[in-house]
């Protein structure tokens, strides 16, 4: 594949493409549906997706076909597909573009996935703030229903798949798949203890698959062009296909760039995103959304695939690449992220609920130059007692910025603590606290 071939963003990059059904059909849209519905066995669709190597684009990177394969084969009752469109990971804004500019590409992917897993009802759980996106999806759904691509007896094949848009109401945690299911059931979005996993006990306790928007949008292309084609793109065998990287922060041209996995961060930041604003040196970047540990300029030549980023001590996550220039205070940046996590902690697990509040308080006083000499120890200690001790991955996510900035830019914390000492602004330690 040539380096610049777009897959997911191809249609919308054409002049005049408005994402209507007619536009989508003109580019070959819904051909994948015609190709498989009633003609290819669902298990073979799953096998194709498995062979393509497609991995979840939401953050965890779990192989999509394998996830589908976990559904019980002999279960007779209803099963569900949920499209995770609760895009909330700071630094990530790709699903919004996929939904608002090419909604039928997503709908076709949803029907294909529903067919493969044998479900008749799919819900698109879209974050509540994206009112425009949900209106566009509703409009696209009405078009697709009228044309016989969604609903009962699709294209006369006897396959039924109903698709509904369900708006969230402002809660980051609902992007976590079990919290999403709770929210879809009309409850507080509190993650469930796993196991059991959604594959067996998901929505309404029925077998359920939750897939990200970008993951599902890849399906029509995999069906049309084959698993071998898809598996040859990117960084095979483990990171196949393209990713839409969302570049934000201090670059000249922030935005969404679809590139094959395996490209380096340097190429993404300096060629696609135009390099640093004002040509200042790059100080730090977050490679995969707010939950991913910070990386340094030394990591610019790391390849953007799941394994390489993990080996560099971070994660590819949701594809949100946030770039910070020289002069940005890393302690301040960490505090801003920590305030996000503090606000969004759902409150179910004590280490996260209490810990996020203590972390924010500690960081705030360090930034305000009122930090105590023992505060770095306090931060490390809190992080260690949150990570791995919560029901969902939020606990690990919220400590990632602190642990990584403490590792790479510890001197900035120390400087602030010295300034606090010099300015004599440190407040006495309350009696109730050991520190």
């Amino acid at each position, binding site marked *: 594949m040539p380096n610049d071939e777009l897959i997911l963003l191809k249609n919308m990059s054409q002049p005049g493409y408005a994402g209507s059904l007619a536009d989508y059909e003109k580019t070959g849209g819904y051909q994948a549906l015609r190709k498989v519905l009633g003609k290819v066995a669902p298990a073979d669709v799953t096998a194709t997706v498995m062979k393509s190597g497609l991995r979840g684009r939401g953050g965890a990177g779990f192989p999509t076909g394998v996830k589908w394969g976990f559904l019980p084969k002999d279960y007779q009752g209803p099963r569900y597909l949920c499209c995770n469109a609760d895009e909330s990971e700071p630094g990530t804004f790709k699903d919004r573009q996929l939904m608002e500019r090419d909604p039928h590409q997503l709908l076709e992917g949803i029907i294909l996935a529903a067919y493969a897993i044998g479900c008749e009802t799919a819900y698109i759980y879209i974050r509540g703030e994206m009112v425009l996106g949900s209106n566009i999806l509703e409009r696209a759904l009405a078009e697709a229903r009228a044309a016989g691509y969604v609903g009962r007896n699709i294209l006369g094949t006897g396959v039924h798949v109903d698709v509904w848009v369900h708006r969230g109401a402002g809660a980051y945690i609902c992007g976590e798949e079990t919290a999403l299911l709770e929210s879809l059931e*009309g409850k507080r979005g509190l993650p469930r203890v796993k196991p059991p996993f959604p594959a067996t006990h998901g929505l309404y306790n029925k077998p359920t698959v939750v897939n990200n928007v970008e993951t599902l949008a890849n399906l029509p292309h995999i069906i049309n062009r084959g698993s071998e084609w898809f598996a040859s793109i990117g960084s095979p065998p483990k990171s196949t296909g393209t990713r839409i990287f969302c570049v934000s922060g201090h670059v000249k041209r922030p935005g969404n760039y679809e590139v094959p996995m395996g490209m380096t961060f340097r190429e993404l930041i300096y060629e696609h995103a135009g390099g640093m604003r004002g040509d200042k040196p790059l100080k730090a970047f977050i490679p995969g959304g707010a939950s991913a540990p910070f990386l340094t300029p030394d990591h610019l030549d790391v390849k953007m695939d799941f394994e390489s980023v993990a080996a560099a001590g971070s994660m590819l996550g949701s594809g949100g690449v946030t770039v910070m220039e020289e002069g940005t205070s890393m302690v301040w940046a960490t505090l801003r992220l920590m305030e996000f996590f503090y606000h*969004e902690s759902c409150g179910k697990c004590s280490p996260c609920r209490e810990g996020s509040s203590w972390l924010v308080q500690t960081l705030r006083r360090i930034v305000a130059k009122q930090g105590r000499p023992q505060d770095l120890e306090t931060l490390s200690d809190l992080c260690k007692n949150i990570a791995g001790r919560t029901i969902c991955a939020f606990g690990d996510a919220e400590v990632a910025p602190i642990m990584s900035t403490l590792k790479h830019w510890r001197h900035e914390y120390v400087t602030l603590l010295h300034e606090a000492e010099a300015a004599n602004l440190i407040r006495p330690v309350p009696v109730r606290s050991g520190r």
Partner: protein
Amino acid sequence: MLREKYQKEIDEILSRYPVKRSALIPLLYLAQRENGYVSEAAMIEIAGILNLTPPQVYETVTFYTMLNLKPVGKFHIQVCKSLMCALVGSDTLIGWIRSQLGIGIGETTTDGVFTLNAVECLAACGTGPMMQINDDYYERLTEDKVGRILADLRTTGVSSLKSGPFMWPEPASAVSEG
């Protein structure tokens, strides 16, 4: 009462789910659209429609930031303050709005037209600083643009500066034409 006015819409919402409680958030949105916030009376009525207890409704409402338990201004301005927007000037943006409207965060103008809040990430990180006003996003904001948006809303109730279907960067053809 919601049922008298929206029976058809309520039935349509209920038909989407095999379990009634799933319709809770959609019905709360309906109540909020009607009153600008979710009133106690609405929560009690919705509980009745879904065979829930009022506390079950309340516990859900209080979890979600988009459901208002008290009235807000006609235009609810929510500025993203998360790191990605902060890197490109969201604190400055909040300052512009504060000085133009003469209100602080969490406050409403005395005429009840604008409420200002700072919120966490709205998934528009490449086009910050940005804000949401009611249902619409406004992105790549400058001081001048903010002034025009607020003036538009105050005078006509709508602003042409709101975001359309999102794509950034814009396709090459659109850029060369524009």
